[in-house]
Every structure is written in C-alpha cells, then in structure tokens.
C-alpha cells in the first residue's frame, strides 16, 4: 500500500514535470519567420484572410499584428480548437515584409490542438496571389 502511494506520487511528479517542461517550451517558442515580397498593408489583409480560412475569430487586427483564437469544440474523443494564432508583420522596406506566425496551444483540450504555422504561411501566400498588387 505504502509502495503504491509512493508510485502514485512519483507518477504525479512526472506528469507535473512534463507539463511544466511543455509550458516552458511554449514560452520559448517564437514561431516561424519568413520574408514575403509584398507591402505591409497587403500582408496585413492577407493575414486576416488566412486566419479566417483557418477558423480563427479575429480579436486583434492592428497595424503589424493580427491575432485570434480558433473556436473550441467538444468531440466524441478529444474535440479540437482553442489554439491562439498570431501573425506579426514587420515592414523591411523595398516592398518586403518579415512575417512571424505563431500558434499558442492552451492547457484545455491540448490533445486536440495542432500547430497551424505552416497552414498560416500557405494561406497568406494564397491570399496574396489571389489579390495582385495594384
């Protein structure tokens, strides 16, 4: 019985450590940065389009930054949603922008969440291609 309690305690400590290390990794994770040959205002619009296509309810849309959460759904198994997706846009001049996309997973429903960094970049590029520069 005593051993069982010790094992249980050990397991709890391991789970807590794992959770803490994941949280620490999430804090250090800075997303993916790419350079896009388009002006900042075009990329800003494309970023809003991209987040919409990925099911984000945009909460912040200010010059140089777009952010919002994906809606949360309960499922038969794990459900999905709840991730916060963000796009940071820095004008580099000469018609180029540095774009940093980042997915922040949340504690609730983490098992059903995924990293949307590459889909965000793909959708930004798609939107830019669909709306040629004037």
């Amino acid at each position, binding site marked *: 019985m005593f051993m069982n309690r010790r094992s249980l305690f050990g397991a709890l400590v391991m789970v807590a450590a794992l959770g803490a290390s994941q949280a620490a990794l999430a804090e250090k994770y800075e997303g993916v940065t790419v350079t896009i040959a388009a002006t900042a205002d075009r990329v800003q*619009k494309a970023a*809003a*389009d991209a987040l*919409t*296509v990925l*099911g984000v*309810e945009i909460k912040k849309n200010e010059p140089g930054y777009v952010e919002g959460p994906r*809606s949360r*759904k*309960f*499922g*038969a*198994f*794990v*459900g*999905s*949603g709840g991730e916060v997706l963000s796009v940071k846009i820095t004008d580099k001049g000469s018609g180029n922008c540095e774009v940093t996309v980042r997915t922040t997973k949340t504690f609730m429903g983490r098992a*059903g969440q*995924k990293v949307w960094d590459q*889909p965000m970049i793909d959708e930004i590029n798609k939107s830019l291609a669909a709306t040629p520069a004037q």
Partner: protein
Amino acid sequence: MVGSRTAWLAAVLCLGLLPACSTTQGRFVPLGEPRPPRTADAHVDVYRDALPTRPFERVARLDAHLEKTAFRKSSFEDALPELMRRARAAGADAIIEPKEQRSQVGETMIYHITATGIRYTD
C-alpha cells in the same frame, strides 16, 4: 428499466452537447466602397458554376467556416445560410465563384468556403 433510463439520459446529454460539437463562423470584407446591408429576408442569387448574364460588380469577399467533430462532414448546403447572411450584410444581390476547402484535425472535419458577393448594375 434502469438500463433504458440510462440510455435516455445519455441520448438527452448527447443532444444537448451536439451544438457544442459544431461551429459556424463567417465574415465579409468589402472590395472597395462599403454598401448598405440588405434586409434579413432579401433574396440572394447563388451561382455555383457559372456567372450571371446580367452586368454586375464585385462588392465583397465572403467567408463561411464550418467545423464538426465526430467525423461529421459539412456540405455546400450547410454553409449556404451563413454565406447568404454575410452577402446580405455586405449589400450583395448574389454570390459567385464559391471556392471550397476541406481539411481535418483529428476527429474534426473542417469546411471553408470563400466566395464573392456581387451587385447587379442594370
């Protein structure tokens, strides 16, 4: 008796949770000068494959986004009410050029449709 009561309870619980198992979102972005919205019951034409023969101008980009869990898929017809709602809000008479995208995250089936809202000019 207890078994059937439990089954009923489970069924009621599942029905209660069903709305939380699916989400519908949408938005419109004016292409140029914003137009006044149309009434909630205004008729909206839908052109899935062809373009209208009447002259028109593009007034808005329309988006509808549906996600359903438990591997349930959405269709164009499921997205149409949201798309039409956004078209009316954008002041559009019709919807053209719908582009569908499907993806999946685990058990969640994702369906997104992007279209163009137009206004007849004749």
